[in-house]
């Protein structure tokens, strides 16, 4: 990943700030609990959820085991359908490819549909350095962009903002980016959405180049899939002449049929809907319908390093539904920004340190930003055992030794342990969740856990240990 979030304080400092911010915490709590409850109802509608989850996990694992083969097949299918495939080993190369493609169109503006991969590589900043303006078109991303801010949640990136703040951002900043906000704009969500519709429509109608990500890519057919709610995705995928999609290599699935699993798992687990309002599927280019030029940029940027770790590799199954954020007691209090990357919450705690390595304080502290309660594993639609990976990564951080890293890490553990409410919540959840918790605590806690199984561990002794050992 690039330096979008460089200079971030390590998790505990950033989290501390969030915890003190009453507004932020209230927003987060409301958001996570609302989605959590809705999601439980949407999932309960399907009696075969467990089987779908098992299939989702198996398909992703199978794909990862043959990732080279499926990527080559995908390349053939996309090319045969009129698209062009580019391979980007890292963020810099991906940004270079996109910038060159935009330059080739002689355009200086692109419209963007929300994509975590392009946030991960800092594409907007890289394009700006080349004189190209990237307009975010997802409502939440627009709020983030106009507010000079950072996303804090995968699904609702502006969840840390309330309606009054959004009104202010629109009223003050829209004019700098294009059509100003209407006079007398109030903070009713309908009016704010209308202001965004008007502001962005002129951009959609004018745009010649769009940049997107994708939720899935089908190797067999070369089809890309974008799942969304607002219609800004459809606008970006349909109206411009040139479409550039930047997609992580782990997003490939083998067959068209496999979509029957993921198009059931993702909407229910993410927005808690039977189906999200809009899903776009396209295969290369179609004469007379949609973009006449389609480029697919396949992004590695650390993913192959994750693949090499047999325990950590399961993080690549992630379909970015954000369910794990919404059940996480640490996320609920710390907020998305504390995680110091575009991937917040439990998935960020295991994905970011693997993509970027554990050489910066914030990355080294991430595996400790958890109480290992296991609620994230329970809700994950592709059954990623996040606690297992967290424990594994803690071992890695400890092994690399060195003081700043370890201190940051221990401070994160301390953050979790110093907030008793977190542990209480965690324990309550753990009680009715999974039977299988990591058996031993690695690192500083190891000597103490060597003799006993973690599930029986009462919180108190660890906290005692913590008080004795805190830096």
């Amino acid at each position, binding site marked *: 990943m690039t330096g979008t979030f460089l200079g971030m304080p390590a998790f505990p400092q950033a989290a501390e700030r969030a915890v003190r911010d009453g507004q932020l915490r209230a927003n987060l709590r*409301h958001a996570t609990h*609302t989605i959590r409850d809705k999601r439980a109802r949407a999932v309960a*509608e399907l*009696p*075969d959820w467990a*089987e779908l989850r*098992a299939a989702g996990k*198996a398909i992703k694992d199978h794909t990862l*085991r043959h990732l*080279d083969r499926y*990527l*080559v097949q995908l390349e053939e299918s996309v090319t045969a359908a009129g698209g062009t495939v580019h391979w980007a080993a890292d963020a810099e*190369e991906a940004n270079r490819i996109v910038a060159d493609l935009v330059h080739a169109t002689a355009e200086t503006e692109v419209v963007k549909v929300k994509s975590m991969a392009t946030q991960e590589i800092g594409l907007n900043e890289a394009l700006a350095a080349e004189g190209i303006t990237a307009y975010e078109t*997802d*409502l*939440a991303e627009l*709020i983030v962009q106009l507010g000079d801010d950072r996303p804090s949640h995968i699904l609702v990136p*502006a*969840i840390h903002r309330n*309606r009054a703040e959004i009104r202010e951002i629109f009223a003050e900043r829209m004019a700098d980016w294009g059509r100003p906000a209407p006079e007398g704009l109030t903070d009713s*969500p309908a009016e704010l*959405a209308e202001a*965004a*519709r008007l502001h*962005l*429509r002129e951009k959609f*109608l004018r745009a010649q180049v769009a940049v997107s990500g994708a939720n899935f890519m089908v190797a067999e*057919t070369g089809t890309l899939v974008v799942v969304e*709610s*607002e*219609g800004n995705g*459809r*606008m970006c995928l*349909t*109206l411009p002449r040139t479409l550039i999609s930047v997609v992580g290599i782990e997003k490939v699935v083998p067959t068209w*049929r496999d*979509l029957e*699993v993921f*198009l*059931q798992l993702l909407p229910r687990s993410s*927005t808690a809907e*039977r*189906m*999200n*309002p*809009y*899903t*776009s*599927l*396209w*295969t290369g280019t*179609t004469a007379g*319908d*949609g973009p006449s030029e389609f480029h697919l940029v*396949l992004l*590695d940027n650390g993913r*192959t*390093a994750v*693949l*090499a770790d047999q325990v950590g590799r399961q993080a690549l199954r992630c379909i970015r539904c954000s369910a794990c954020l919404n059940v996480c007691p640490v996320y609920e209090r710390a907020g998305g920004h504390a995680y110091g990357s575009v991937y917040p919450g439990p998935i960020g705690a295991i994905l970011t340190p693997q993509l970027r390595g554990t050489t910066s304080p914030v990355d080294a502290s991430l595996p400790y930003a958890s109480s290992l309660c296991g609620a994230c594993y329970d809700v994950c639609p592709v059954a990623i055992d996040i606690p297992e990976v967290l424990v594994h990564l803690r071992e890695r951080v400890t092994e690399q030794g060195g003081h700043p890293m370890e201190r940051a890490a221990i401070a994160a553990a301390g953050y979790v342990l110093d907030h008793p409410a977190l542990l209480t919540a965690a324990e309550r959840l753990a009680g009715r969740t999974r039977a299988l918790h990591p058996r031993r605590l690695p690192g500083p806690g190891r000597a103490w856990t060597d003799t006993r199984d973690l599930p029986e561990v009462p919180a108190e002794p660890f906290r005692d240990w913590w008080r004795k050992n805190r830096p």
Partner: protein
Amino acid sequence: MTSRDLILGRIRAALGEPAPPEEQPLPRHYLTTHAPDEPAALLDLLHRNLADYRARVHRCTDVELPARIAELLATRGTRTVAVPPDLPPDWLGAVTAERLADDGTLTAARLDAVDSVVTGCALAIAETGTIVLDAGPGQGRRLLTLVPDHHVCVVRAPEQVVASVPLALPRLDPARPQTWISGPSATSDIELDRVEGVHGPRTLEVLLVTPA
């Protein structure tokens, strides 16, 4: 070395030993459908689920269809209506609004000034309340159903209604660009308040049509 070779090489190195080609078939123990296998019940389910996500759902027979379309457009106050070039001609038989058939030259800017669009669909999925457009007969190009603010979509029952996602995919051609629509455009980005309509059509009306 190209980046392609580099990435593929990294993947092979990460995986170590090539996985054995003969693997167990993937476990697919989930259900093919969660809905009753009975056309009338399926249509009711589709109706309920569409309405639940705030599409406006109407029912009529094929004989009544032209009058119902005309009525919906009149109620809306539609002055111009865009249609795909191959929309069955009788569908608009009773419509008085100005008709704009897309001959492939309609631009987004032109469509932005159009009041309504009327199309058919490829199929509809009852369990999820989803309408699938695949730019096939009576549906037109993707931008046609995207830019106008009012979309009237005709679903022919029972032949276009399937129960579930697993039953829908085999009937769809991956080579065609597809839009799956489940209710009108919506956002919950502001304090999780659901607001209908940001960029796509803010009003979606679905006509479920059965034989007379």
